[in-house]
């Protein structure tokens, strides 16, 4: 978490978002909502995890404990954007909050500046959470610590000639539902990440949804599953609404119904129901639901969705090629 160039901020309480686009904004707003609702106080980490369920334990044998308050939760934010238009947009959206503790910084292409010596230096000893799709931790480390290009890009806590500790890099992929604090965020880290760092990352993302720790190899598939499928389901509902409107329903009413029903379906499955059993329960013999289901089967809906997911994953993996 690096302070901006010439700003003197209590570093440990500041969260900087390098590149505050759609996803960065979603996270920022989700955090601001949670913090303003809870009065910027240090909420209990245990509560944060418990209230979102579905959280697996931390990797590397770290566990949550009541003494996890020792890391500093952010109370100030710096959002870095590339263009004046982005800065304007952000300012407009932030005006919904009274006195949002956010500083907007506009600068050059933030992605290319990761390799800049001044930023690299500023990141020393700090925690860097990357939400870049398709860019692996080894790739980021290769940019931040290019002094040993021949070593395998596995994280090593020592062996550096610098006097300060290297940057701790954690990779996270939340999704746009952060806006309504319903994100599914997957996180991967390396063995050098401390318990304290992992706790902070968990806290950050549990304020805007659920958190799961995964291995690096699963990251692209999870990016697709958690980050992209919401768009698939949105397209699904849009098409369903077109059908409903054609039959005479008002679009806004139909949308509420469809969205609420989709939410209920998701919750049933999260509660343990399998999709098969659910379909069986809904599609009574000779009834109306099976007519619709058959129409979907005949046109290979499931295969189509599977293909979309696979294609999406492949594309996610190759996004990082631009940066390496």
């Amino acid at each position, binding site marked *: 978490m690096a302070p901006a160039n010439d700003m003197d901020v209590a570093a440990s309480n500041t969260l900087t978002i390098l590149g505050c686009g*759609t996803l960065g904004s*979603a996270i920022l707003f989700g955090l601001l909502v949670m913090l303003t609702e809870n009065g910027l106080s240090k909420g209990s980490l245990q509560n944060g995890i418990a209230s979102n369920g*579905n959280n697996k334990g931390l990797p590397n044998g770290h566990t949550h404990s009541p003494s996890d308050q020792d890391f500093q939760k952010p109370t100030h934010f710096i959002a870095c954007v590339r263009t004046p238009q982005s800065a304007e947009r952000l300012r407009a959206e932030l005006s919904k909050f009274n006195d949002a503790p956010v500083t907007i910084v506009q600068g050059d292409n933030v992605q290319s500046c990761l390799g800049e010596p001044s930023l690299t230096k500023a990141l020393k000893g700090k925690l860097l959470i990357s939400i870049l*799709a398709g860019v692996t931790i080894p790739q980021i480390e290769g940019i931040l610590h290019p002094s040993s290009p021949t070593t395998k890009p596995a994280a090593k806590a020592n062996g550096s000639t610098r006097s300060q500790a290297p940057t701790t890099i954690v990779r996270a992929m939340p999704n746009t*539902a952060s806006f*309504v604090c319903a*994100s*599914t965020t997957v996180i991967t880290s390396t063995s050098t990440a401390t318990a304290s760092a992992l706790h902070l990352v968990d806290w950050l993302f549990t304020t805007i949804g659920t958190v799961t720790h995964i291995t690096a190899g*699963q990251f692209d*598939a999870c990016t*697709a*599953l958690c*980050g*992209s499928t*919401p*768009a*698939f*389901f*949105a*397209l699904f509902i*849009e098409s*369903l609404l*077109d*059908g*409903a409107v054609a*039959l*005479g329903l008002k679009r806004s009413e139909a*949308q509420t*119904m*469809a*969205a609420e*029903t989709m*939410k209920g*379906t*998701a*919750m049933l*499955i*999260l509660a343990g*129901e399998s*999709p098969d059993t*659910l*379909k069986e*329960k809904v599609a*009574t013999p000779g*009834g*109306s639901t099976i007519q*619709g*289901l*058959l*129409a*979907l089967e005949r*046109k290979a*809906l*499931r295969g*189509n969705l*599977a293909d*979309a997911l696979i294609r*999406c994953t492949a*594309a996610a993996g190759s*996004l990082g090629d631009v940066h390496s």
Partner: protein
Amino acid sequence: MAVNVLCLNITFLGCGKLGSAVLEGILSSLSEPHERFIPPSQPFRTKDDEPTLGLISVVPEKILACVHQQRSADSLKEKFGPKGVTVLANENVRGVEQAHMVVLGVEPSVFGEVLAEPGMRDALSGKFLISVVGGVSIQRLEAAIYGSGPRTEEDKERSPIIRVIPSTAAAVRESFTLILEEKDHRYRPEFLISIYSLFSRIGTAKLQPDSHGHIAATLAASSPAFFASALEGAVNGAIELGMEREEALEMTAAAMRGAAALMASGESPGEVARKIATPGGSTAAGLEVLRDGGLTTLMQDAVVKTASKVGGLGEKK
């Protein structure tokens, strides 16, 4: 404002998959204070300036489930008996006699004979009849109970019948339930409020003008199956990529919940997709596959086919 707490006995006449889901949801709602299930009086004001209605909260007292097959009765007893539900096999009239409210949940093919059973008409007298039977109109339900002749003096005491469309998510109290208002039926506000209160125990309830009832039936009751199919497809893709099924299921369901939450809060589907899919990005690639596969027309087709079938349910073949 004072709250009128109505402690009512509820009989599930027919307790199949949907009935069981509703029953399960109601049972788990009992642990919460009844104040949580008081509907707003706003939607229920009558046109003539009636004095403000009191608030009503329906609290299920005794719950009965009536089924036909002993086998069904046994499995229901096992599941709900320990929670205090009385399960009866082939004792429909007796079950209805003990109720204040009756939830009719039999299959569309048998509603006629169930309602025409000797003694049923009298048993139903003075009670509310809530039908969750798909695609069967109030007219046909009334005809089954009272015959299709003109109303007589005695018929003043006909039980009010209302159609309600819950969904299987009732089991986890996440049903989006439609309470159908039919144009030829004027319900007394207290009646509507009571229904609303009961069904708020299993999720969100909404009054729906019945002119579009059958389309609403499609969306509310059938679409969970369509969503489950879509979800399955994505999960299968993830499994092919090497992910464990359980993990993929959990993530996809959570992602679906998030998407739904966004759209339920008012974001249009188009907006949601646009926000996520940066041009040339990975999501856009996936969406292209969906569009190439004809998702848009496919879904419209499914909805239309389902809605048209609903109209024909319960017809004698």
